């Protein structure tokens, strides 16, 4: 979870102090020069909540244009910090899709605790609820900082090629095997975009790990996008002449950390559960989520999920499928 600010002065301590005091746990704050916006936003903005400093661009129309650019090209949520009260009608920003506006009086009084958290939640970048039991683990240190044996709170995702039985008949065992290998290789950078890693491969699919809170694109959204684009991905990425689909299972829990390739001795109920969920309960062309993972579903996708019964004592929800 990152908050990025395009400021008139990236060394502006008053601005960083204003935001830092209301920073949700586990969130990072970064200030960049507004002048570097065009050069940096495609690389820096995806997955972040971006504030534009009206001190650098007091014209509401132009700020709205920049914000729209962020939303459409970097697929991120944005807001405006207007400490000087330069914008007469902040509604213009909201018409353009802004998710937050920190005006003059609020900036003068200081942001109340949880203020930025609510903005992030409204954009689906943080849970809307009050601090959850696992929030203590939300200050995720990064994969590189974990030591073997650490107990770590993560989100699990089991991802696999769908309709494998049908594919076996259509393309044969050898090509299916190659396809599964290619898909696993495809998942590695895909998971990275969401701050995750490919952790364990089995014969059917891959177990991916994501930080407990979003660091980059939301992984459920990324999975949903892959299901939406399945025809394009099958044809353009995997060069298949036969329909391709995927299946995804999400769960949230705790595991003992071992680096990829050294996971033979991992003992974890949650790891067992996600493998069972992914291989036994997940359905082709859909995302299934355990009750622990439900909070990972972004608000704007929640109406596409509905209860899907119980599995090994846990309540499940599943996404609608796209029809061919």
């Amino acid at each position, binding site marked *: 979870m990152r908050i990025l600010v395009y400021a008139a002065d990236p060394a502006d301590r008053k601005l960083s102090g204003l935001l830092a005091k209301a920073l949700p746990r586990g969130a990072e704050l970064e200030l960049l020069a507004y002048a570097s916006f065009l050069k940096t936003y495609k690389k820096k903005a995806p997955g972040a909540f971006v504030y534009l400093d009206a001190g650098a661009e007091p014209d509401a129309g132009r700020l709205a244009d920049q914000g729209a650019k962020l939303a*459409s090209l970097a697929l991120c949520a944005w807001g405006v910090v207007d400490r000087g009260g330069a914008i007469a009608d902040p509604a213009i920003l909201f018409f353009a899709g802004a998710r937050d506006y920190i005006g003059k009086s609020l900036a003068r009084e200081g942001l109340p605790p949880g203020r930025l958290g609510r903005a992030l939640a409204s954009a689906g970048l943080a849970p809307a609820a009050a601090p959850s039991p696992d929030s203590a683990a939300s200050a995720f240190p990064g994969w590189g900082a974990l030591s073997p044996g650490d107990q770590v709170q993560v989100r699990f995702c089991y991802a696999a090629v769908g309709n494998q039985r049908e594919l076996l008949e259509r393309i044969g065992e050898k090509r299916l095997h190659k396809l599964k290998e290619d898909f696993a290789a495809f998942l590695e950078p895909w998971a990275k975009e969401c701050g995750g890693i490919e952790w364990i491969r089995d014969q059917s699919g891959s177990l991916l790990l994501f930080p407990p809170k979003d660091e980059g694109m939301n992984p459920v959204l990324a999975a949903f996008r892959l299901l939406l684009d399945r*025809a394009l991905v099958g044809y353009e990425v995997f060069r298949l002449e036969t329909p391709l689909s995927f299946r995804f299972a999400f769960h949230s829990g705790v595991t003992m950390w071992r680096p990829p390739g050294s996971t033979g001795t991992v003992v974890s109920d949650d790891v067992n559960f996600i493998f069972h969920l992914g291989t036994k309960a997940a359905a082709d062309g*859909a995302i299934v989520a355990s009750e622990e993972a439900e909070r990972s579903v972004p608000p704007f996708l929640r109406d596409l999920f509905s209860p899907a019964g119980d599995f090994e004592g846990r309540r499940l929800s599943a996404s609608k*499928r796209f029809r061919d």
Partner: protein
Amino acid sequence: MRDRGPLANTMKRGLHESLNTDMLERIAREVFAEEYDLHERTGFPPSVAVPGQVAVDCIVDDAVAQGRFLHLAERLVRLDNEGFMGRAYRVTGLREVFKGIAAEGYLWDEETGHFMEDPHIRRTPSWGRLIPGEEHRFSLLRVDVVRNSQLVRTYGEAAARDAFDDLRSILARCVELRSGRIWSWEGDGALAAFLFGHSTTSAVLSGMALLHELFLYDRIYNSLGEPLKVRAAVHTGPIRYFPEVGEIAKQETVLEVMEAESRWTPPGMLSITPAVAPTLDRVILDRFRPDQAESSRLLVYEVRLGSP
């Protein structure tokens, strides 16, 4: 006309060392026209052989003057790779020519065998290589916003304009990722063109990707009070390329794709014409179905959600 002095000289040196006049003239006929006559171009009488250096200078200078330098370079690459009539030819200096062309902002595309504009440097409507007046078989993707005037009236010009701008960005991403070019954008609708590789497939996949992106856009970013719906259509046919969009817009193939979109395509859908369907691989074609009204011969695609 682009000044290609040093690069042209590099090519001339290589050609002079590699090919005789007879072979040069064969190549020139392929690059320019079957009627290309080296004697006529150089002024040498038919009874006198054109000296090699004169032939090389004439062909390369003509290629530069007529905007066919890249075409000549591509033909030489093919000659170097494949030979001619079973005989191998080595064209020296091609590496330097490649470097010079790359410095001009072009990348070699192995799949099509063409030098293409480096999209990180520029994306021009002519792909930096089309010659005005020349006819090619293009594939076109026409996109139009449904009820655009009503959107402006209901949500105000600024909000509607922002939504149209978002659409433009999304469309540009879908099209340019597949080597297409947006030829025209009228604020609420667009015409995109595809020429190289499997151009119909690229146009169709771009249209499908656009509908997918809009599905997510409506849920995540759309600040209008309703989904941003488009009609999209793909058609293919001959078009004479001109830098002026007006000259292109009145040609038959463009009129046909516009009619397919505006008259026969239901809102929220992408249609393909009977000229496009047979060119698609089955796995893509199967995603399309006949229009429910069955009032046209178009096939349509839309994002459809089913049950969990």
